[in-house]
């Protein structure tokens, strides 16, 4: 059984929590759990209720969207990445499948638990959102670059 102190230390090692104030970290640790997913196991499924988010400690997760010709992989995430922000939207519903492509260890956070604490403590709410926003901006930027089809045919010559 992983103790709270161990979880706190593990979370502190993740880039998401770097530099986080001890008091705030203690608040989010109360909503955290250690999880593992085997290769091929789904972490979350499109359309499901987004009631968690995940800090990936080790492993790899593919974000996929189902299509009639099979799953299309949109992005892969690995050690040090954050998975899932749909819990922040309304309604909180996953918009992709996330499948572990190898043995993957994560810290999961209960979104309802965290949302309650964020509502009660605006400083925590601000801190969590402040940490999510650059990641979301980076992912949106990367998605735009993927849409550009950069490696398509260049200038004719």
């Amino acid at each position, binding site marked *: 059984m992983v103790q709270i102190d161990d979880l706190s230390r593990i979370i502190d090692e993740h880039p998401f929590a770097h530099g986080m104030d001890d008091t705030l970290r203690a608040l989010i640790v109360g909503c955290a759990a250690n999880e593992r997913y085997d290769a091929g196991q789904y972490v979350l499924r499109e359309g499901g209720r987004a009631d968690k988010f995940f800090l990936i400690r080790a492993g790899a997760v*593919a974000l996929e969207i189902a299509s009639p010709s099979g799953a299309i*992989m949109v*992005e892969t995430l690995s050690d040090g990445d954050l998975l899932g922000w749909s819990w922040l939207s309304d309604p909180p519903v996953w918009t992709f499948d996330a499948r572990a492509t190898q043995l993957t260890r994560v810290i999961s956070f209960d979104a309802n638990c965290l949302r309650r604490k964020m509502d009660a403590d605006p400083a925590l709410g601000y801190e969590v959102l402040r940490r999510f926003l650059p990641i979301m901006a980076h992912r949106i930027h990367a998605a735009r670059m993927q849409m550009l089809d*950069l*490696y398509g045919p260049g200038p004719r010559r």
Partner: protein
Amino acid sequence: MKMDVQDSMVPVPFRIEKVRRELSDTFTMELKPEAGGAFRFQAGQFNMLYVFGVGEVPISISGDPGESGVLVHTTRAVGAVTRAMGQLEVGETIGVRGPFGKPWPVEQAFGSDLVIVAGGVGLAPLRPAIYQALANREKFGKLVILYGARTADDILFRKELERWRGRFDVEVKVTVDRATDRWAGNVGVVTNLVARGGFDPMHTTALVCGPEIMMRFAAQALVKRGVSPAGVYVSMERNMKCGVGFCGHCQWGPHFVCRNGPVFTWEEASPLLAVREL
């Protein structure tokens, strides 16, 4: 083979010794001078290749600078000249002018980590630098190759990438923009790999080549990670014609890309890339 400026305007006939299909639209040719002799170049330089009766195009050299017996070019067929080039067969003749341009600063990077960031067919102009780095492996710290392609089927020099990844002294990371669940590697833009590469940004020289937008964001990611803008090099492509800075077709601000480039530091390139009209 060394040319002076006057000679540089006259194509030298080379015989096509081998043609290899790399991808559906990309091929590699091995050439030898019909008159015999060697061809020396530095990693990052380019030649003007002349398909007789069709036209001439600038193509980077993709072979080993330590191997002067054969000239290697990897070309993507995207227009009239390159498509005609792709139809040429072993034994036919092609005109070569060059080598032209400023090379990758491989030797200046001795003593530091060397990071190669390539996108799509941009791996071809970087392959000579990789060969040179591998030939001098003990003179570098970490050697990191980050490569992005459109799909798994579009990975250039796949076998070589796999071979380099198999070495204990090279870190190779590959990502594709689109994949199905048959692909077990990374999916996402190549700039994502910059954050994950195991190099010391304070002691890193980075060589970047690919589509211009990719180079822009890769260079920004390297600088954000802490690499000096003077230590990031990009290979620019403009409308190179004469190859020696006479005709002005490839003028880019104060530079002629054929003569002052194609390799520029990010410090030099970034202010010019910010000018929309250039």
